[in-house]
């Protein structure tokens, strides 16, 4: 219906709008969301006709809007200040637009009467705007705009001048009206709650550019850019490097998350993923750490799986032939007893193959390739992966170190959490490979005895292999037979209400100290400082919080509740 194509507007050196293109459908409630100065109001003014873009076109049902004077456009704007004419009564204000259409007096009176009924201000018809409350003025402004029956109604911060209580009512009112009159609404707002509650779709603006156009839920749950994550939903943001199963943050370890790029709906639904897995007890195993491990990783056991990959294929005497995942195809990867060879996986995740005498045959899926991943007992050799991550070799006799590639997110071959006592991983070469954490206290899950294992030369320049512990080793320039990979800078976003807080110090998760607890709106807002991070992590809990300021707590969250966003 409304098509905005390549619209650019500059004010001197400032580019208010930079090549903005949007399409808005008939009958849609569309929101332009962004902080002040992001260009959203300029776009609105261009639509209304009070600004002219330097470049680009705007068409409404195919008609060129830009060539029309503002008073000739089938568009009405509800101003932020409402812009009611102070010297006219409410009825006169509403009638003003109809009078310009040269309608008969009787019709004007009838339509004004109707719309006054609709907004419930019939008895205020004779009052001046100065005699009305804020909410009433807002309704009059709305009535004045919709009485014209425009094809498109623009609303500039429609609720910002109202106090909170009135605002909630008006939100409903606006939605009801929009539904009733069937006019396409475009609302401009800096208030993400307002946008979320009103709109069918939202375009998030930043510095004159559209960052993401999505439905409210998608925007909230799957932000695609760091800006959107920060602006929408007050996410806790962590900067780090993408690794399988999460994000490695210096000083904090690996935080669980799944990639925003994974579009497959099945990856969102843990149940679906689980059902496709080989039967395994520990199928929910995105966690880099197991129960016994003295983990620093802020992950818990019940972390849901992410992805259709074979996570935690565990079985006794089981031959796990290729985790059943949509794209997965497993061949060549052999982990016999202690060996896994030629694991080919493009974009595949063999996150954990725990098995006794299990041969996990290399999962292949997605498109990453890792061949020659060999983990023998405690040895993993030549894990080549473009986009592969060797997450964990953990098993009795088995080292199935399924190369894992979190889709697009991991171009890096990463040996993550290879917990082996004196593990040996040879030839794990990768450009930007990360040997994230080789912890060697036998902290492996059940029955891991990688005692002979040695981890050496994990291709990590910065990698430390000390007593089998290589932490945060980031390998650059390593080479793999057959592939290059890279550790990606990324951002992890997790919303306050998704963060779990436990006061049991023995559990997993990020250790932290509660600095502030405030309760409003039926929700406890808890700020927790975490060592190694400047900003406190915000936690929202339904109802009154059980913790008090000063309490030592641990924080964790499910991987699927956190979103990884590629930076840049």
């Amino acid at each position, binding site marked *: 219906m409304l098509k905005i194509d390549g619209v650019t507007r500059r004010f001197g050196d400032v580019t208010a709008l930079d090549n903005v293109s949007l399409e808005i459908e008939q009958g849609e409630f569309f929101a332009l969301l962004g902080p002040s100065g992001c260009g959203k109001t300029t776009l609105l003014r261009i639509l209304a006709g009070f600004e002219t873009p330097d470049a680009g076109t705007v068409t409404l049902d195919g008609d060129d809007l830009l060539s029309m004077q503002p*008073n000739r456009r089938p568009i009405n704007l509800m101003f932020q200040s409402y*812009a*009611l*004419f102070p010297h006219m009564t409410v009825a006169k204000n509403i009638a003003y637009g109809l009078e310009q259409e040269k309608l008969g007096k009787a019709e004007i009176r009838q339509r004004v009467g109707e719309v006054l009924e609709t907004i419930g201000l019939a008895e205020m018809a004779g009052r001046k705007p100065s005699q009305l409350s804020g909410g009433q003025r807002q309704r009059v402004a709305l009535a004045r705009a919709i009485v014209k029956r425009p094809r498109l109604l623009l609303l500039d911060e429609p609720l910002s001048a109202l106090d909170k209580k009135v605002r909630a009512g008006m939100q409903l009112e606006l939605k009801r009206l929009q539904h009733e009159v069937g006019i396409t609404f475009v609302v401009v707002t800096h208030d993400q709650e307002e946008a979320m509650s009103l709109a069918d779709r939202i375009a998030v603006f930043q510095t004159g550019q559209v960052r993401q156009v999505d439905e409210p839920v998608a925007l909230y749950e799957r932000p695609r850019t760091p800006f959107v994550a920060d602006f929408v939903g007050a996410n806790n943001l962590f900067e780090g490097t993408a690794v399988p199963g999460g994000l490695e943050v210096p000083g904090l370890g690996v935080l669980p998350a799944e990639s925003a790029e994974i579009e497959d709906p099945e990856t969102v639904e843990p149940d679906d993923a689980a059902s496709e897995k080989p039967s395994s007890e520990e199928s929910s195993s995105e966690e880099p750490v197991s129960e016994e491990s003295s983990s620093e990783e802020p992950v818990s056991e019940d972390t849901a799986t992410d992805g259709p990959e074979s996570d935690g294929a565990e079985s006794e005497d089981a031959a796990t032939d290729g985790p059943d995942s949509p794209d997965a195809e497993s061949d060549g990867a052999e982990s016999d007893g202690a060996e896994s060879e030629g694991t080919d996986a493009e974009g595949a995740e063999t996150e954990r193959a725990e098995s006794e005498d299990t041969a996990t045959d290399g999962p292949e899926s997605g498109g990453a390739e890792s061949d020659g991943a060999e983990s023998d007992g405690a040895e993993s050799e030549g894990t080549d992966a473009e986009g592969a991550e060797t997450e964990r070799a953990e098993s009795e006799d088995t080292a199935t170190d399924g190369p894992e590639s979190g889709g697009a997110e991991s171009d890096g071959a990463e040996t993550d959490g290879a917990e082996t006592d004196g593990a040996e991983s040879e030839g794990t070469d990768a450009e930007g490979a990360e040997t994230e954490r080789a912890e060697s206290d036998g902290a492996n899950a059940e029955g891991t005895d990688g005692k002979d294992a040695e981890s050496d030369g994990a291709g990590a320049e910065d990698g430390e292999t000390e007593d089998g512990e290589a932490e945060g080793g980031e390998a650059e320039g390593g080479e793999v037979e057959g592939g290059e990979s890279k550790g990606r800078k990324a951002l992890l976003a997790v919303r306050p209400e998704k963060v779990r807080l436990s006061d049991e110090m023995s559990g997993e998760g990020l250790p932290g100290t509660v600095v502030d607890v405030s309760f409003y709106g039926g929700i406890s807002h808890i700020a927790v400082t975490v060592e190694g991070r400047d900003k406190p992590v915000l936690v929202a809990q339904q109802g009154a919080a059980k913790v008090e300021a000063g309490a030592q707590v641990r924080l964790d969250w499910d991987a699927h509740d956190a979103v990884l966003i590629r930076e840049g």
Partner: protein
Amino acid sequence: MGKPRFLYVPFWLTYVFLYAPILVLLVMSFNAGRSPYVHEGFSLKWYGVLAQDEKILKGLVNTLIVAAGSTVLATVLGTMLAVGLARYTRSKLLDALGLMPAILPDLVLAIGLLVFYDVVKFSLGLHSVILAHALFGMAFVAAVVRTRLTHADSSLEEASRDLGAGPVTTFVRVTLPQLVPGIVAGALLAFTLSIDEFVIAFFTAAPTEPTLPIVIYSMVRFGVTPEINALASILLLVSFTVVIVAQRMTKIGEIRAQD
């Protein structure tokens, strides 16, 4: 409230300095004697003399004609100038030049006008004074209306356009009503300025049609009588009334604008 008392002293001194001469003038206008300097008892007789002075009455009528005519012209032109300056230019120079006549020395304006009238062969009379007064009155009106316009909500005009009104309808039905207080204040200002304006009137009036200030000036040359004081007192009263009304109008306008 905690403010140092002694600061009132300069305030009151200034006030005395400002109003002492006016007070003297008022008192002397009720003088029974002939001297404008020595008070010899209360009397209204000079007001009576004033009422019968044909020259003064003629001057008064002329002045009122000039003031009324020039105020109408100045208000219309000044408002248009202000709107044009506020809405259609961004030039600071045009802005400054438009309001220039208000601060230009009267003498410069007077000589300029006289020369101009002569060049275009414009006859001198009340009409030439009206035009001359309209010229500087316009600048004052424009200055007042311009200030109001910058404070006025331009979104009202946009709303009017948005609702389908053309530029002319918008100006008449939305812009103008917003400016009324400013226009009235500007008009009253132009009126008072015109009433006691001397220099420009002196240069541009015909000798046969003097305005009141010119009449007074010619009388003073032969010595001041309490009659002049009486006249001055009346003018003072008129000016005061007008200024206070203008002030109130602006204030009401501001309150209304805030609503």
